[in-house]
């Protein structure tokens, strides 16, 4: 009985953990919704107008004390910003030792001309953070993945579609460093009191309290029966995995 009771409370704590992580991401998505409605209400579509307007929205999030977001902005569908293809009104927060930008103390706008080692990527709109919201019309979490366009770091990208006049006008989005998320998520995982991992929809480990299942690995079905089910983090495609048997 005592054991069952303990297992029940581990399950309950794991559900609380999933709910808290869901809330953390929903907070960011709430910010994206706010940005989305402001972009959708825009009537000025020259780059000289779009870029400062987007920076006015996202800048404060990037320069706040200990920001959760390392990058944010609006990526306009081809033709939406006058005379431009896919247009990046995207800012990177202050960076440490970035391979292209070095160390910066202020936000810098993503300059694709300085990322041409990546121009073998022929179609950026085919990338998951754009393609999925475009296809589903819904918000999406991409990653964790190594982002070699912006931060050259391990990140999650949250995006939400922007629709103007009934057609896809792009995505608003935000990047979160996995090592920054870890600081917020680890205490939540530890509170479960059993080995626990936060994983993406694909089963990629984001944060884990189990050294056998480190960040970056895949926790797939063949990881074994030790993993007793997955608890969805509400409002996201992320899951909390719980190890109950040793």
């Amino acid at each position: 009985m005592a054991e069952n009771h303990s297992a029940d409370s581990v399950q309950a704590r794991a559900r609380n953990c999933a709910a808290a992580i869901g809330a953390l991401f929903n907070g960011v998505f709430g910010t994206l919704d706010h940005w989305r409605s402001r972009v959708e209400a825009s009537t000025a579509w020259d780059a000289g107008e779009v870029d400062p307007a987007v920076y006015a929205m996202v800048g404060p999030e990037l320069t706040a004390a200990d920001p959760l977001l390392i990058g944010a902005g609006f990526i306009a569908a081809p033709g939406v910003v006058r005379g431009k293809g896919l247009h990046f009104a995207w800012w990177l927060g202050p960076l440490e030792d970035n391979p292209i930008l070095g160390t910066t103390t202020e936000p810098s706008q993503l300059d694709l001309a300085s990322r041409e080692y990546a121009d073998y990527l022929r179609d950026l709109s085919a990338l998951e953070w754009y393609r999925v919201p475009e296809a589903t019309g819904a918000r999406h979490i991409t990653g964790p993945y190594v982002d070699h366009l912006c931060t050259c770091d391990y990140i999650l990208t949250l995006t939400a579609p922007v629709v103007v006049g009934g057609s896809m006008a792009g995505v608003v989005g935000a990047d979160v460093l996995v090592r920054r998320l870890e600081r917020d998520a680890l205490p939540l995982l530890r509170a479960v009191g059993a080995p626990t991992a936060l994983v993406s929809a694909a089963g990629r480990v984001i944060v884990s309290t189990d050294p056998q299942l480190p960040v970056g690995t895949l926790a797939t079905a063949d990881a074994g029966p030790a993993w007793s089910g997955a608890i969805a983090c509400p409002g996201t495609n992320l899951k909390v995995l719980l190890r109950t048997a040793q």
Partner: protein
Amino acid sequence: MSQEPSATTPSRGARAAVFAQLTGAGRSEQVAQRLTDAILLGVLAPGDRLPSEAELAKRFGVALVTARDALGAVREAGLVETRRGREGGSFVLATEQAPERLLQARLRGLSQVEIADLAVYFGTLAAGCAERAAELASTDEAERLTAWLHDADFSAASDSGRNAGGFYLEIAVVSQSPRLVREQIRLQAEFGPMLWLCLTDPAMRARVYAQNQRTAEAIAAHDAAAARASVRAQISDLSAWLLAAKEHLEQGAAADG
């Protein structure tokens, strides 16, 4: 450099990795060498405007005076000219010598041991990335890599260099390691044009493409040993090609002399 990447400029692959941050001594020479390589290899084309001295300094992470010295050296070599005025700046000149001859000068400038060691280092990094990618690739990632390679053009020298480098960067991304990705970017910025010199040879383009297909298949099959072996075979070929080209060049020169 314009904000918007131009779709028409040929062989602009890795153009801005040209400007990635530098470390170590002799930075002015390093900046000049990076710019010279980029111009000789057509990564920067005749008529292209270089970033301003201030922008170069920022991009390379060097002092303004260092960027100015480097630009001066490239100008003295006759590779760029600097125009004053509102529409001014430093512009890449059309070189009268065939790029091939300038490339040969670059090849002469490196010793055998430098070329061989570069291949060992790049090969170790790339093989490690491939092994890790084979272990960690999700089904989606493997499919994306395969689809990307399927559409990649290896028929022309300039696109091949860009795509051959891009392939290894993609593999580093699949390895899930930011350090490996950063090191790939750094190494390709420094030596990419050298490494892919062999792709001026159509037979080598076909060979590299076929090897890349085997690597992608091995990654999709989670066969780490096969992925590693395929990458190592390719880097051995690159190394042998570069050493043979250098030998041919220098023996030819010795016979002429």
